């Protein structure tokens, strides 16, 4: 076992480096990712090590970046694209949803699209508009894309490498508020395949599911609940599409109660999807309806109001209380 204590951003950096060392067809593309090392410094040092031909500071055009990544993939490369912030992915929405997601199907399987799109996402950083959003549901709704989001440095290190190894397009959502806290990364073994969810805390009364930055918020809530006598089981989704339901259903069979928490707006979201599926599959095992905790169905508000918008431990505990009252 070989363990390093690293922040999540640095873990992705190391994962990218491993992937580039292992496979010369891996190329990175994005705005400011080369000389600057990205606005979050996730690609720091990689241009110096691998050269400007493998770490490309692209023109300022997201549709162009994803569209040309598709062409490079056709040519046998494995492009890893960085979108600078969540809210700036939309100029590339057409290329991602009508092309990247569907080219394999359109070619009747003759063509694979091994493209990774890295998206720093989510709030809690007090930034201006378009820099705090959680747009994953738009992409989860599109067949042909795989979506994952690591919540901790260990997972980030391995998941980025597994995402790059995948023959399918993978959208890799990086919880930007978690870039800096450190965690142990075991560089000898991953422990989980890319699309497996994971029980991160065991409990008996209520199950709470979440992904990305929400996982640490849920763990805080679970600590408080424990001090008040409620035992919470916490599941980190890790994969947003496909969703690995087995651990969730097993947990619900034990607790009979499920809360789904996310930063994204609740309407037509991952939380809605999970709630519907669990109701369908575990109806007789449930002691309470599946409850959702989410951002409001409003635009992400100005930074000074993010605390109103973003679910915190209290909002999660409120749902836990409601679930326990049934």
């Amino acid at each position, binding site marked *: 076992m070989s363990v390093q204590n690293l922040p999540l951003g640095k873990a992705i950096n190391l994962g990218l480096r491993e992937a580039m060392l292992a496979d010369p067809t891996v190329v990175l593309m994005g705005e400011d990712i*080369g*000389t600057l090392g990205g606005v979050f410094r996730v690609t720091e040092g990689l241009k110096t090590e691998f050269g400007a031909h493998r770490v490309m500071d692209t023109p300022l055009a997201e549709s162009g970046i994803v569209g040309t990544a598709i062409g490079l993939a056709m040519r046998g490369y494995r492009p890893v694209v960085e979108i600078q912030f969540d809210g700036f992915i939309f100029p590339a929405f057409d290329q991602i949803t009508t092309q990247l997601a569907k080219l394999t199907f359109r070619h009747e399987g003759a063509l694979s699209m091994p493209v990774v799109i890295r998206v720093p996402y989510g709030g809690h950083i007090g930034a*201006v*508009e378009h820099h705090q959003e959680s747009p994953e549901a738009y992409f989860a709704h599109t067949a042909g894309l795989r979506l994952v989001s690591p919540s901790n440095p260990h997972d980030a290190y391995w998941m980025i490498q597994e995402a790059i190894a995948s023959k399918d397009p993978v959208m890799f959502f990086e919880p930007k508020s978690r870039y800096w806290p450190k965690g142990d990364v075991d560089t000898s073994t991953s422990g989980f395949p890319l699309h497996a969810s994971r029980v991160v805390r065991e409990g008996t009364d209520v199950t709470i599911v979440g992904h990305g930055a929400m996982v640490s918020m849920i763990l805080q809530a679970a600590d408080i609940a424990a001090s008040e006598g409620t035992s919470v089981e916490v599941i980190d989704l890790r994969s947003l599409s496909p969703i690995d339901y087995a651990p969730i259903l097993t947990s619900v069979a034990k607790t009979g109660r499920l809360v789904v928490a996310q930063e994204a707006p609740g309407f037509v979201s991952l939380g809605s999807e999970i709630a519907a599926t669990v109701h369908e599959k575990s109806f007789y095992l449930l002691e309470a309806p599946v409850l959702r905790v989410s951002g409001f169905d409003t635009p992400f508000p*100005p930074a000074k109001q993010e605390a*109103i918008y973003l679910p915190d431990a209290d909002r999660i505990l*409120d749902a836990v209380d409601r679930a326990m009252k049934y």
Partner: protein
Amino acid sequence: MVQLLTPEGKFAPSASAEEFLPYFEKLTDADFRKFYTDMVTVRRYDTEATNLQRQGQLALWVPSHGQEGAQVGSAYATKDQDHIFPAYREHAIAHIRGVDLIELIRQFKGITHGGWNPFDPKHKNFHIYTLVIGSHALHSTGYAMGITLDGKTNTGTPDTDEAVIVYFGDGATSQGDVSEAFVFAASYQTPQVFFVQNNHWAISVPVSVQARVPLYLRGTGFGIPGTQIDGNDVFASYAVTAKHLEDARSGKGPSLIEAHTYRIGAHTSSDDPTKYRTDEELQGWIKKDPIARLETYLRESGADEKFFTSVHEQAADFAADIRRRAVELTAPGPESIFRSVYSEPHPVMEEQQAWLAAYDASFEEEA
């Protein structure tokens, strides 16, 4: 490159400046002093905002330092009835159009996504900032299409003819939206000026990544003629923009101006420019400062020390007033996040606002 005022402050129009000189000649000494006062005031304001950000008062600041010449000259070339679509660094233009610069502070303090109503006459059609690079180019073109539909160009009364000017950076020229705006503008012959502030960098990416030919030529293939100007020469910026806008108002269609300038400060308060550009380059551009050259020119044409002292005092007062008000700004209550999502009543907004109010009240009961 059109230049009237050299970096040394000498009035020495380039050959290419000739067709624009009649516009310059309409200016008086009072205008020059106004240009100078605004440039100094906004630079002082910009420094104050940078300090406020460092002291934790603002979430972010986007400095305009270095680009005052391009901004002040072109802003004075607009008429009240024109519409202006800025990117996010056009503080001097906001000031000249009558926007209280505390509004920008509200935005960057994280209290609002916008800040002011462009349609309120006191803001003289200065639209709100756009953070999604290039997207507003299309809005400006659409607005200009509306002016044409309304028959408000080339009416025979030039004083009321309307035009649009849109500002964006060198990096923005790579966005599809900007090329599409060129296509629509040319197709519909919109009364509009595309004003590119080429400050040579898009965060850490040099302009050479965005364009292999000078950006003023970018429009040519679309059918949009362009002029390249020394953007640190406020006279060139004024005269060239005045002509381009007059052409637009009189029905001659869209055009483009590429203003060569430089972002002296960081891209934003989150940026560290030493990571990607050399001090030598920076020092070279500091020598071409737009304010210093106008100061030299004014001194040589008779402005006395009293004038400069009073401008700097006014600017300091202006900045102090902004600081005072910036510190006092507070965010509106939780109901505001539901308030303007839609223009008509919406059941989900009502339901979620009520839920939040009840939820917040439940804590007050506990306390």
